């Protein structure tokens, strides 16, 4: 059992510096210490901070650890230390076996040379012999779908073709015990993406994988374990992927942004799920619950206003518009003063994740935007499964007609 631990990370920390000039100076000091054989200290010098702090984990063959966290959380730095590119300032990393990385695809490509020449160069950068490439070059070309262009200079390739070629070289040739993946799976068109994902799944069966991504559906579908990082620290390390994903979304900083002419404003937005009022501070609700909003708006003198409520995802992309209308399907026109509006938002069929509201109030005749509040009342949707899509509908399906033949 113990022998199957391929990655062992104990108390690993790494300092970074905020300021370039100072960073270079510290670099010189580190070079000096390195040459003199002095150990690194745990003290932060001025302008330094912990990019990674006190990370511990062990990973076995067959496991896939997802490293998630917002930009600057330390995921990529952690990966660089695992890959031996930079040294930890404290702690210890033990790596058993061959390391393969799907990072920096197409590294070492020279645009002037042909695709065929570049395949060999790229492979040798990845530490793979010419012989190995000779054996599998047809497979690489087929995987990248560039049969017709194999003797064309790479500079005439489209960016998609270059990425496909880079992925194909690495993914076909490596047979790692340990695999590092950093945001490389979202390349090319959907056909190619699926091919990549299938290939990665194949590689995963025989290796221990560390997977860095912001793509929660990918994390959910690939990882057996997730570590959520925030400001260099591990804030959660669990095999319950849904919990980790939820925690990740909870780390998002929500900022309300207000624009418009200022002749109207949103005073309050309260949520209730299945008739029960939710707390104000980023409530969590279950997929499938009925959601109702109570919206208090203020309209200034001389204005007649219409209201639109939008549910937006974590990237502030609007997903559903709920125009505030009466039973006849006309906008409710609001005169000056404060109004409380009760707005049924329907059943929550949103994919698990973090959402917020956009409320837009405009003048009913001129369409001038009186106010637009973005990032209002963020909430989380919890579900046992996370899917690729924005929405999930739970339904009960039946098998109709003749029974499958193999049951005869």
């Amino acid at each position, binding site marked *: 059992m113990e022998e199957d631990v391929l990655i062992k990370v104990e108390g690993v920390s790494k300092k970074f510096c905020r300021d370039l000039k100072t960073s270079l100076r510290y670099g010189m000091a580190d*070079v000096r210490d390195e*040459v003199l054989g002095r*150990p690194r200290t745990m003290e932060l010098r001025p302008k330094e901070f912990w990019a990674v702090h006190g990370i511990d984990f062990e990973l076995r063959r067959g496991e896939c650890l997802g490293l998630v966290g917002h930009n600057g959380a330390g995921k990529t730095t952690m990966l660089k230390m695992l*890959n031996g590119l930079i040294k930890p300032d404290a702690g210890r990393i033990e790596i058993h076996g061959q390391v393969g990385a799907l990072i*920096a695809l197409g590294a070492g490509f020279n645009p*002037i040379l042909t695709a065929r020449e570049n395949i060999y160069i790229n492979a*040798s950068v990845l*530490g793979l*012999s010419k012989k190995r490439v000779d054996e599998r070059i047809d497979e690489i070309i087929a995987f990248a779908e560039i049969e017709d262009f194999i003797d064309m200079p790479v500079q005439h390739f489209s960016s998609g073709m270059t990425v496909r070629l880079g992925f194909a070289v690495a993914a076909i040739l490596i*047979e790692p015990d340990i695999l590092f993946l950093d945001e490389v799976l979202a390349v090319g068109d959907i056909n190619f993406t699926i091919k990549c994902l299938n290939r990665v799944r194949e590689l995963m069966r025989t290796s221990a994988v560390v997977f860095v991504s912001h793509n929660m559906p990918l994390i959910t579908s690939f990882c057996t374990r997730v570590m959520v990082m925030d400001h260099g620290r591990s804030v959660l390390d669990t095999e319950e992927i849904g919990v980790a994903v939820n925690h990740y979304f909870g780390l998002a900083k929500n900022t309300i942004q207000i624009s418009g002419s200022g002749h109207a404003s949103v005073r309050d937005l309260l949520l209730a799920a299945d008739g029960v009022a939710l707390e104000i501070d980023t409530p969590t609700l279950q997929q499938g619950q009925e959601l109702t909003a109570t919206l208090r708006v203020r309209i200034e003198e001389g204005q007649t206003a219409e209201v639109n409520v939008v549910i937006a995802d974590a990237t502030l992309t609007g997903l559903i518009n709920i125009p505030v209308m009466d039973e006849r399907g006309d906008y409710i026109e609001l005169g000056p003063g404060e109004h409380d509006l009760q707005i049924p938002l329907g059943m929550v069929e949103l994919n698990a994740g973090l959402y917020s509201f956009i409320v837009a109030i405009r003048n009913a005749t001129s369409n001038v935007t009186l106010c637009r509040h973005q990032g209002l009342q963020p909430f989380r949707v919890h579900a046992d499964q996370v899917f690729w899509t924005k929405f999930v509908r739970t339904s009960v399906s039946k098998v109709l007609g003749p029974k499958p033949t193999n049951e005869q």
Partner: protein
Amino acid sequence: MSEQVRGTVAPKEPMPITVYTPASALRDPGLMFRSMIADLRASRELAWSLARRDIKAQYRQSLLGYLWAFIMPLSTTAAWVYLNASGIVKVTTTGMAYPVYVLTGTMLWQMFTEALQTPLGQLGASKNLLAKLSFPREALILSGFIKWSFNAGVKLLIIIPALFLLGDAPNAQILLVPIILLAILLIGTSIGLFIAPIGLLYTDIGRMIPVVLQFAMYITPVVFAMPSEGFAATLFRINFMTPVIVTGRAWLVGTEGAMLPELAVVCGGALVLLLLGWVLFRSTMSVLIERMSA
């Protein structure tokens, strides 16, 4: 699409174990030495591959191609021959036709400056690779050697016929020239390896090198003859490149005057420096990568 499933791979041989800690690699010289040798062996194929890539790309995008290796020393020679002939600069007796003197001198000197700038150039051009992928870093230095040797070979192929044309036909000593090339590569690289780590951090170094080399050329018998007395003579004498250029020229042209003992001392020193430079290069690479802008 025939994507065969490889199934469970039984561990073939004992798996390599790598440990990363904050401790300096110099703490364990035995381990460091073993991994230096291992990395050097492991980097041979990559070095060839990178060198081939760069050489191919360099000539595929150029009309004059290999001629460029020769144009620089030729134009320098022309300039100095003009300066000398017009009397603007009077070079004291050199023991051979002045054009031959300048041509051989600038050629050897250019090889030296290229060798010196190669480590930094190689690392700078590969910043992106260094920052993202783990591969034996020695490959970059080795591929620099290969490219340098290729360029030096091209220069020789052109200079030897030129010497015949200029009337100073080489003799059997020409067979010794590879030794001087090796010495130049050794000396240039050993200095270059020391400069490279700092040069990667501060661009000032890269800018300073040509300035210093320009000055150094004038205190080396490249275009000027060795002064026989005065402060300049002392400068020429303590200059470690003097025996290299003088000996190289003597062997190319087939004259007396090789400074063998001095050359041996310089090469010995360079060899020690090279080993130290290699250790410096290895132990500082990870420090540099984290500070590098790539």
